[in-house]
């Protein structure tokens, strides 16, 4: 992973000092809240329902064991002993004090971390495939360019006061684990016929109030032009994106209202002017950054698969966990271990300080000190030897991190919702907990198969409900919590937005409704069909019928 040198470290250290002074000025009254708010947002500091909230950046979801340990330490010292992993691969603390934030940020800087640009109308954390560098189907490790983009976008003087937030995601594999098509800019690394590296550029995807799958505006952008092209897109957006209505200010609206073709022309025209200028990285810098993502020195023993098979045969619970949570690794003898942060009945995506420490220790011992955060609010140990998996799992068990439910119905995404968030209309966490408990039986979950259920407590869609196979959106109906159900969404390379299938349900009828939908699917599915596949084949009718008794 990328390691800071003195230069990178200087920036985060100076940033902490700058923020320390901004906090001082706020508390002393030299800055009003209106003036302070954009400044604190640029450091990821929100004011939420109960307290401030700090969103720590975890660039493209990659963490070292040391960093994760520090996050645990901070949770204990400055917060209430836990953190929440988000749908943008970041970590949120829910109870930091403003007066202590400069010290907290200084602690983060000490392990090469920060909370820069995790909020505000600027370019946010660049997210990537959580299997980057270890997935067999990868063209290139997307984190190389995610890091290049991260640096380019950090304190970019021209793009610090955009019409609205800006989210970029990168994938290096054909299987899209980064939901690039519902981002402001999505990048898919690929090679052209001559084997040259480049990117498919997608602009104008997004969720929220007006979800859209982004159009591809360029099929192939040669790699060496990445930054100049991004600069062109951002400049067109900064100059002409809507600023009159905050609900219409994302680039997706601009692309939609301008028309993708015309928008593309505008970008290409701007890009012509800057493509061979200094905005691109100098020779050597790209190589320097790429070198941080070279594959590590793997040293499998050769009998890993055999040992794993034996461990699987000897323990049915372990076997089940392997079948759901372990993915194939590109290196022989290795595996990718997914750690579910969705224990049955638990708060999705939350991890206690103890759990964070446990995962850090496991990473140190068994995963070359590296951890990944997924945008589906789980963790990954990306470099585990097959013969070590059993030991890993046994430790996970003692921390309730062993739930074998990756991709199953209880592996839900849920935003913090009305329990924490000032923007929410309804609670999402207790609903997730109740649904999880209804489907607690793992045999049942396995039988149902892959089912991505995503819950948002408001239209801002931080729970990504638009791309849930089943999506649930909390709404406020005359002071009561109601929930709108959507079906058929997907955030993968087959991206689609879910369809609303009927009237919303009050809180106490939602769990039954979900169960009804699942049973309806089980009643009509063809062999090997996931819920999503059955929905796409048959449409909404059988589901509407089951839920509402009508077509």
């Amino acid at each position, binding site marked *: 992973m990328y390691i800071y040198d003195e230069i990178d470290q*200087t920036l985060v250290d100076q940033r902490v000092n700058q923020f320390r002074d901004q906090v001082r000025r706020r508390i002393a009254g030299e800055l009003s809240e209106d003036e302070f708010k954009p400044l604190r947002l640029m450091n990821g500091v929100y004011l939420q329902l109960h307290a401030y909230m700090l969103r720590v950046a975890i660039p493209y979801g990659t963490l070292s064991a040391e960093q994760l340990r520090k996050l645990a330490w901070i949770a204990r010292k400055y917060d209430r002993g836990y953190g929440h992993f988000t749908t943008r691969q970041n970590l949120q603390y829910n109870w930091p004090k403003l007066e202590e934030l400069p010290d907290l940020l200084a602690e983060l800087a000490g392990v090469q971390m920060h909370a820069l640009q995790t909020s505000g109308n600027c370019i946010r954390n660049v997210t990537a495939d959580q299997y980057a560098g270890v997935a067999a189907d990868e063209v290139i490790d997307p984190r190389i360019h995610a890091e290049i983009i991260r640096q380019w976008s950090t304190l970019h003087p021209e793009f610090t006061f955009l019409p609205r937030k800006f989210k970029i995601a990168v994938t290096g594999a054909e299987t899209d684990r980064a939901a690039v098509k519902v981002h402001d800019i999505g990048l898919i690394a690929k090679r052209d016929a001559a084997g040259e590296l480049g990117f498919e550029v997608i602009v104008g995807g997004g969720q929220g109030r007006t979800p859209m799958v982004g159009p591809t505006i360029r099929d192939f952008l040669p790699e060496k032009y990445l930054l100049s092209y991004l600069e062109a897109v951002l400049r067109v957006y900064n100059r002409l994106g809507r600023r009159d209505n905050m609900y219409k200010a994302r680039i997706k609206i601009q692309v939609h209202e301008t028309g993708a073709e015309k928008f593309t022309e505008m970008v290409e025209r701007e890009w012509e002017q800057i493509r061979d200028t200094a905005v691109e990285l100098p020779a050597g810098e790209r190589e320097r950054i790429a070198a941080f993502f070279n594959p590590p020195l793997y040293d499998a023993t050769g009998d890993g698969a055999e040992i794993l098979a034996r461990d699987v045969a000897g323990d049915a619970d372990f076997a089940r966990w392997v079948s759901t949570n372990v993915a194939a690794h590109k290196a022989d003898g290795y595996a990718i271990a997914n750690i579910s942060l969705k224990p049955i009945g638990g708060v999705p995506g939350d991890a206690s300080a103890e759990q964070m420490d446990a995962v850090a220790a496991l990473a140190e011992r068994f995963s070359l000190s590296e951890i990944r955060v997924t945008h589906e609010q789980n963790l990954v140990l990306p470099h585990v030897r097959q013969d070590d998996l059993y030991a890993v799992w046994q430790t996970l068990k003692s921390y309730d991190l062993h739930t074998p439910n990756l991709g199953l119905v209880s592996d839900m995404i849920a935003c913090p919702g009305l329990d924490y968030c000032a923007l929410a209309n309804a609670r999402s966490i207790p609903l997730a907990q109740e649904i999880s408990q209804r489907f607690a039986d793992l045999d049942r979950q396995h039988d149902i198969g892959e089912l991505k259920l995503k819950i948002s407590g408001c239209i801002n869609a931080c729970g990504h409900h638009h791309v849930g196979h089943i999506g649930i959106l909390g709404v406020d109906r005359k002071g009561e919590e109601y929930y709108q159900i959507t079906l058929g969404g997907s955030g993968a390379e087959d991206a689609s937005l879910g369809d609303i299938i009927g009237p919303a349900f009050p809180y106490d009828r939602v769990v039954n409704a979900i169960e009804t939908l699942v049973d309806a699917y089980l009643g009509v599915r063809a062999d090997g069909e996931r819920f999503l596949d059955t929905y796409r084949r048959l449409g909404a009718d059988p589901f509407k019928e089951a839920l509402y008794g009508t077509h």
Partner: protein
Amino acid sequence: MALIKDRELSQDSWLYIEDGAPVPSAGGAIVSLERWQAERDQLSGRNAPIGVRLDADTAPESLAVDIDRLDLIAVPFDHFKDGRGYSTGRLLRERFGFTGELRAVGDVLRDQLAFLERCGFDSFEYAGGTAAADALKAFDEIGVVYQTATDRRQTAAAVRNHPSRAFSNGTSG
């Protein structure tokens, strides 16, 4: 309002002239864009510096023909959150080659100064609550830049690739 020019507190040697009011024959005069476009020959015929105050949505392209006749361009920020002026500044400098005084006016606060300077602005009608003398510290708070901009400060990458060069804070223009 305090004027910051070239990172110092400065006396303003320019006057804003209202549309319809006579333009003095001497001294720096800043007129509206409309007036400039209506009276450009007379105004540049004056033997004195002439400046133009744009609107927030003025496209810098529309000034391309005038660049060499202007000594000052004032770019307004109606609200500090409106970031269009940063692109405007960059384009006026980098694309259209403006070499005169590029002034940020309007809701110009302390924490925007460093970003503005990087985008080519060399003077600022400072409107923030902190004392202007304190605001000057803003220029030096972050000594590392990752990306190129108008100011041609050494980026982190440039420093790394030419280790003999130390970090320097370039000024714009």
